[in-house]
């Protein structure tokens, strides 16, 4: 009997490994992606990624093999596409050529085919698609494929330097969060050596081995690369998770400081000043609207976002009667991260039915999730305040690059949560 837990897919939204792998490479400046697969799979990956970064359409191509490729292979289609890209003067620093799931089963020698094309830039090849899992699995697999196929030489370790693993601009507000994490680490005296998949170019990635420590902030994305780097270069890693809230961020830096001491004074001063300022404004808002309270809170997001944000929500921002955390990935058994403040921690796939039942029953609640979940509650006109913390997002314009995480993110999240609360009160009065 299969161990699979089947459930209605409506309470879960993910993309496939093909999208995740493309996301990792699109997070590397001047890299490109060639999807060896049908136009449909390519297009859905592209549309997903376009919401995180403009210009992706010019960096992703597709080979579009037909039925015959299943028998005769995809070489003809791949070489034609690579030839077209050459004629259109694509000269990336790096290219990923990835098979979709069906084409992964054919057994084409991708490396051999791309060698035939004789391209003047490095190419990483991999099988991808839904058979490997979702976005996170694809991202992680691509990062390890890059490491293994690049064979970067071992470098002398530079003291005080860290790589930040598991960041992506294709999570909701991911680019702003990455900026804040790098800013915080720099302010705490660390030198950020590289952020693979989220801003570091090929030259910076080649220096990954010189970091003293790898910090895995979102283990569903970054843990496999951390393990591979430890195996290849002996670089140790730690999994601090994501820093949310003021106290949460300072505690996050403390955790990092335990394995690699930094300089916390400046960051602490900034945190304390932000706390004083926030307290004044929250008291002012409470005067009109009462203390921030929701009967129930439902947090649904990629695993790390969900568990780390949930704790800050309950200990720093909002009082509530019950909080449920719904993780799109299991980060507890894989990386030891969990929410200590949630009344229930559910995992997509395993607990999707229970999550759907709770979603259906939400009233006077706060939903911190994606448009997938908000479509669910809006369908039944439930009185729920919604704030997006994960993709897909269809009902919000977020144009200003302000982080959700870190010290700067603490104020921004407080603002968003207060506005959600006020919005629900106003809607109640209609």
């Amino acid at each position, binding site marked *: 009997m299969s161990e699979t837990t089947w459930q209605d897919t409506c309470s879960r939204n993910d*993309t496939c490994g093909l999208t995740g792998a493309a996301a990792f490479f699109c997070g590397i400046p001047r890299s490109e992606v060639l999807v060896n697969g*049908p136009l449909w799979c390519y297009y859905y990956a592209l549309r997903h990624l376009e919401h995180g970064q403009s210009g992706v359409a010019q960096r992703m191509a*597709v080979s579009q093999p037909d039925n015959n490729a299943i028998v005769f292979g995809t070489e003809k*289609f791949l070489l034609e596409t690579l030839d077209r890209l050459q004629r259109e003067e694509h000269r990336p620093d790096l290219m990923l050529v990835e098979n979709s799931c069906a084409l992964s*089963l*054919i057994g084409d020698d991708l490396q051999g085919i791309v060698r035939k094309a004789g391209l003047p830039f490095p190419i990483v090849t991999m099988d991808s698609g839904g058979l490997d899992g*979702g976005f996170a699995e694809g991202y992680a697999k691509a990062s390890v494929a890059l490491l293994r196929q690049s064979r970067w030489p071992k470098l002398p370790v530079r003291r005080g330097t860290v790589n930040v693993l598991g960041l992506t601009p294709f999570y909701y507000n991911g680019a702003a969060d990455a900026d804040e994490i790098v800013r915080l680490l720099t302010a705490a005296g660390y030198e950020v050596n590289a952020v693979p998949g989220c801003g570091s170019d090929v030259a910076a990635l080649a220096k990954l081995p010189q970091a003293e420590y790898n910090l895995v902030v979102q283990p569903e994305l970054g843990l496999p690369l951390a393990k591979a780097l430890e195996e290849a270069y002996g670089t140790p890693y730690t999994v601090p998770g994501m820093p949310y809230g003021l106290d949460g961020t300072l505690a996050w830096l403390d955790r990092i400081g335990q394995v690699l001491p930094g300089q916390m004074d400046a960051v602490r001063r900034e945190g304390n000043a932000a706390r004083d300022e926030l307290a004044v404004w929250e008291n002012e808002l409470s005067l009109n609207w009462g203390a921030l309270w929701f009967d129930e809170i439902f947090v649904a997001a990629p695993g790390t976002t969900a568990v780390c944000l949930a704790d800050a929500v309950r200990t720093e921002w909002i009082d509530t009667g019950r909080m449920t955390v719904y993780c799109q990935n299991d980060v507890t058994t894989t990386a030891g991260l969990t929410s200590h403040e949630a009344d229930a921690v559910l995992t997509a796939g395993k607990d999707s039915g229970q999550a759907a039942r709770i979603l259906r029953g939400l009233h006077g609640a706060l939903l911190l999730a994606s*448009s*997938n979940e908000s*479509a669910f509650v809006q369908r039944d006109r439930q009185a729920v305040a919604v704030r997006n913390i994960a993709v897909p997002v269809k009902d919000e314009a977020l144009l200003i690059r302000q982080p959700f995480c870190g010290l700067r993110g603490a104020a921004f999240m407080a603002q968003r949560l207060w506005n959600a609360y006020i919005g629900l009160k106003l809607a109640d009065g209609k």
Partner: protein
Amino acid sequence: MELKAKRFIGKNKSCSCSMTGVWRAVTYCRGVVAVFHSPRACAHIARTMDVNSAFSTRAEGRRGKTETIPLVSVQLSERESIFGGVDKLQQCLAYVVDTYHPECIVIANSCVAGVIGDDVESAARKVETAYGIPVLTVGTFGFLDGEYYEGYLEMATKLMDRFFRPCQKEPGTAMLLGDSGGPWGSYAREVTQILERIGIRVIGQFPGFMPFRELPDLPRAQAAIILGGRRKPADGLQRLAATLEERFDVPFVRDSYPIGAAGTFRWIRDMGRLFGKEAAARDVEAAERERLHRALERYRPSTEGKTAVLCLGRWLRYFQPDTILETTSLLGLHVTGISLLDGYTPAEREKMEQAVRSCTTLPLVDRETGARLAGEADIVLTTHEIQGRGLRQIFLPMLPQAGIGAMVRMMEAIYRTLCSRQARGGIRYV
């Protein structure tokens, strides 16, 4: 510098996936459960379509029944790619029967299942025999052996063959055949309101938008109305309608659609004849002519003499250029050129050029001239978003738009674009 679409639009054979077509044929059929014999992520693509649909329904201020039926993925993985997926499919179907107690199960097949070579038909028969519940599947596998519309039409045909039954006719009633955005989409709403004014009641929209239990009685409709245009899917719908007429005595009008002004007036007259309500149809036609006249009175003073460029990238089977040319002519717009984008094969380019020449003497220009003319034009009417700053683009809808209502919406979009004083350009969706 030549006209270039923002996204790659070259198509070979594999444009879309048949699984989402199967899904769309049953999405809102209460009593049915859909099973994707696929990796998990394929079901998320279908879910993404539903989320998009839910929010566009809300964005247009419409209230639709947006509760979808359960969609369960078999969650094919690496293991099934080696050992086959039929056992897991049967276990999943057993789970579906036990959990949802469906009246019917529909299976859509992925390209992965196609490559593995799973005999889904036999598995469906076994489960049907074991549980006494109808289990339907299709002969297409993802992008292999068919695309979206093949999956959609095959499932619609199977539902009709299996569950429709001869009924006593109910005069003055119609069934809608096809999708075009569902009952809450503009096409069905426009058609429904015209039919109601003629004195005809719509009793259901097939496939996809009626409870499973109501299917057997649907042939009580006096006639069927195809929702479509002169595009590829309408051919399949006409075949479906022909079978419906032959087996269940539900007549329809071939090749008549309420698309464009002339087409709409002709269609209204056809409806009058089909239902024996010619006098009422004449009144409605007069009212629609008056509606068009009022719109032209409002918009033409602002549009007459303004310049436009038409950019086409869709194949002829998906887009007929005559309707937009009718609109530009009615508005007195001066179309300075029609340019075909780079998404055509030579044969498809030839077909589109012929279609353009058959309905206008306006000049077909190359992409370089098109880029110059677009830069000079007041507006650009386009099937694909064009790269370049400052162009004031209006997106020509993918789905056929029905009636004078659709023409008025397009006129309003053109009028509003011409009213814009912003130099930044951008694209407006109708």
